[in-house]
């Protein structure tokens, strides 16, 4: 195993050791990682992108910068850096560089194209609590949209189950690299998320079946019942461990295992929730059961409670443009993300859509421009964080990606123009220092298997 770990570009070593045993048994009786990531970046040459304007993802904008990449990691970034010998030079003059775009809310692969019933794998609308399902078991890596998102600069994305259920199941975080298996896309070491849904969707889905939840109060009762069961499950596990693991362990329960993972702080709550008042209730539910919510998603009304969300350190993943499809989204505004930002919170622009995921940079540009017009100044350096560093934080991978700080994975986009502009195209995209998209080189534009032999397969986008 040790010899295998060499020459893997230095990545994933921690994960490899974790998964080396195949299914290491954690202290609490469940296998730690039964579906381990097999993604290993190929070896890559050292690289210097020279002369571009760099948005680092830490808030800075550096003109005429040099970005050095070595062993698949960011080595250095700054103005006037000398390029060490042996580094391949990429001419970035007149271009822009950002961290790889990260989408904190995607259904790629679980709602694959073409949209046939065979590909509807994201919403198990059969019970209000399906915490036992894992999105990665639905992901079709041949969804042609993965490549389209790559052409839009997206290097990491969190795939979530849908919002029909109170508890939709586990999310999975992927690196946006071509792969035949989902394990080959899994982001090494990324934590799992749990999709929870507020509001209209669960109550509509189950109310129309004549069962609970049929109301918002029914939704909340459903969450609390589940957390009571989860707390009980956790206590039984802990008791067995504290008692020296004598006798049979308590029987595993996939549903409660995921909820208990949240209570242990290992699984991050990703909460679909539109209205300000419902978010406030969810914060109380979390407090009642001793867990924290990592991010509210969609959250069209987050701006109404921006200071509260900042204080609670809960990220807000939202749009600039989407509003009004249903009552709970009627109060959506373009400036939602910048207002979260201005209150000191963690603002994210997400897609939830196979078209928008290709243009998250533009959506952030729309929000930034709207904010500047509303007298809420936002710099480009700050706004890029909405689609890089902040989603990384919400997904629990901020120590690995989201900024161009030395030591982080070299997930990088070279843009043809100011990335917030409608005219900006991703010229090249690197994942872990490996080129995965090149707008002018068909070798890095390979379509998914589904598109092979179909009309338009030769088109990059």
């Amino acid at each position, binding site marked *: 195993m040790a010899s295998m770990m060499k020459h893997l570009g230095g990545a994933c070593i921690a994960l490899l050791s974790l998964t080396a045993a195949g299914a290491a048994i954690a202290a609490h009786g469940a296998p730690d990682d039964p579906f381990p990531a097999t993604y290993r970046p190929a070896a890559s040459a050292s690289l210097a992108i020279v002369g571009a304007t760099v948005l680092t993802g830490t808030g800075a904008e550096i003109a005429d910068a040099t970005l050095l990449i070595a062993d698949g990691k960011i080595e250095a970034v700054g103005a006037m850096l000398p390029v060490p010998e042996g580094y391949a030079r990429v001419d970035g003059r007149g271009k822009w560089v950002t961290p790889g775009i990260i989408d904190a809310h995607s259904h790629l692969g679980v709602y694959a*194209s*073409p*949209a*046939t019933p065979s590909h509807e794998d994201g919403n198990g609308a059969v019970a209000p609590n399906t915490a036992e399902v894992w999105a990665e078991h639905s992901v079709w890596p041949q969804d*042609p*949209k993965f490549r*389209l998102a790559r052409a839009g600069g997206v290097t990491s994305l969190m795939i979530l189950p849908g919002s029909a259920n109170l508890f939709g199941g586990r999310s999975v975080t992927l690196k946006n690299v071509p792969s035949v298996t989902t394990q080959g896309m899994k982001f090494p070491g990324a934590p799992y998320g749990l999709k929870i849904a507020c509001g*209209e969707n669960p109550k509509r889905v189950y109310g129309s079946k004549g069962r609970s939840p049929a109301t918002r109060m029914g939704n909340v009762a459903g969450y609390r019942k589940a957390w009571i069961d989860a707390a009980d499950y956790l206590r039984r596990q802990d008791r067995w461990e504290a008692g020296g693991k004598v006798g049979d362990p308590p029987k595993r329960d996939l549903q409660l295992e995921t909820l208990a993972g949240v209570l242990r702080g290992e699984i991050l709550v990703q909460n679909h929730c539109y209205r300000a008042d419902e978010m406030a209730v969810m914060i109380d539910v979390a407090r009642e059961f001793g867990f924290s919510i990592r991010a509210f998603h969609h959250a069209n009304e987050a*701006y*109404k*409670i*921006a*200071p509260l969300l*900042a204080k609670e350190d809960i990220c807000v993943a939202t749009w600039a*443009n*989407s*509003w*009004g*499809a*249903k*009552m709970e989204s*009627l*109060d*959506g*505004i*373009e*400036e939602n993300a910048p*207002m979260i930002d*201005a*209150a*000191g919170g963690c603002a994210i622009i997400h897609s939830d859509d*196979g*078209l928008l995921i*290709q*243009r998250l940079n*533009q959506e952030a*540009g*729309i929000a930034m*421009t*709207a904010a500047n*017009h*509303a*007298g*809420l100044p936002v710099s480009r350096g700050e706004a890029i964080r909405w689609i890089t560093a902040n989603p990384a934080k919400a997904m629990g991978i901020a120590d690995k990606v989201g900024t161009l700080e030395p030591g982080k994975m070299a997930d990088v986009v070279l843009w043809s123009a*100011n990335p*917030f*502009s*409608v*005219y*900006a*195209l991703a010229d090249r995209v690197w994942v872990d220092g490996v080129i995965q998209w090149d707008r002018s080189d068909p070798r890095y534009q390979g379509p998914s298997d*589904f*598109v092979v032999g*179909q*009309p*338009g397969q030769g*088109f990059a*986008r």
Partner: protein
Amino acid sequence: MIRLLAAAFALAAVPAAAETVAITGGRVVTMGPMGEIERGTVVIRGGRIVAVGADIAVPADAQTIDATGRIVTPGLVAAGTALGLVEVRAVETTDDRGTDAGDLSAAFDAGYGLNPDSLLIPVARLGGITRAITTPAYKDRSDRELLFAGQAAAVVLDGGAMLMKRGVAMVLDMGDAGAERAGGARAAELVALRALFAEVRDYRMRRAAYDRGETRDYTLSRVDMEALIPVVEGRMPLLVTVNRAADIRDALALAREERLKLILESASEGWRVAGEIAAAGVPVLLTPVENTPASFEMLGATLTNAARLAAAGVTIAIEGNGSHREREMRYNAGNAAANGLDRTAALAAITINPARIFGLADRIGSLEAGKEGDVVIWDGDPLDTLSRPATVLIRGVAAPMTSRATELRDRYLPAVRHPANGETP
């Protein structure tokens, strides 16, 4: 404070009623024969453009809007919208886009029931949209066998009575959706359509006999057949949503054989038959960002569709992203430009082209003397995410640069700026 000053300035600088207005100093992109004027003047009197040019004297009584450093364009014309017909899509009482009444199909008229107070209208207007084609949508139920969604209407978005022109197109789905509605096969729809058009022609010759009950039974109701007469006479265009290249060919053949005036909508694989579409003189409405193979009829979808159609000589109009998201139309045009469409052609695709396609170019779509005074002054490139309209005039009257969304924003901004003492309202 800056924002307040800006608001006060805007109030002082823009006309509140139909008076004489002169927009001076801006780069005027006329979308008409005059092309672009580097430092041009547009004069509007009584709601109509009376002069456009580089050396135009500003009338003494004119209220002047200084557009120096800005870009002046015609108001944008949004095709394929639901503006005025829908408020919240999930609330049925606020959705008037279609009917599931079994005996009303072609006669359904989107020119009725329009709501000028719709919250969607100011939002669209803040995206520079001043006119729209409001288009009916199918409201299917399982036993519905309906071929036509109904008739589209041209509307104005100044907050007053909306209807500008009724019956600008007859809306029909072909391809997957049309086939499903016709019983599950494309051939079924194509045969049924030909039979229906024959019936309408027959009915047209025998109206009196029909009223006496002396004709054979027709498939459609009287109102539906009446509504289809202008279609079979080639006066009202048939607006066909269709995507697959083969289906586009079928639509072109149908129009040729039945001597119909055709508009194609969506046309994901239009680039594959662009020469044939151009040769037929058929215009295309499309959403160029729809590049995913979302269905088996869209396998060839690509961001380069708009550029390829235009290069082949097809007149294209670019659409927004549906009811609440029409304001994204200009970004869609910008994305088409980023993917090969000439920038002026992209602007034409959201101004003069939709006006031409729907027979409105004598009134709107360009900055020319005699046209209605719809003008947008932009603080930058109208197609870019980095710019916004500074002023929107409709028939020479400045529209408020606010919406319910900006009012909500302003309600909560103080608490965000000063969280310490910020009481939320």
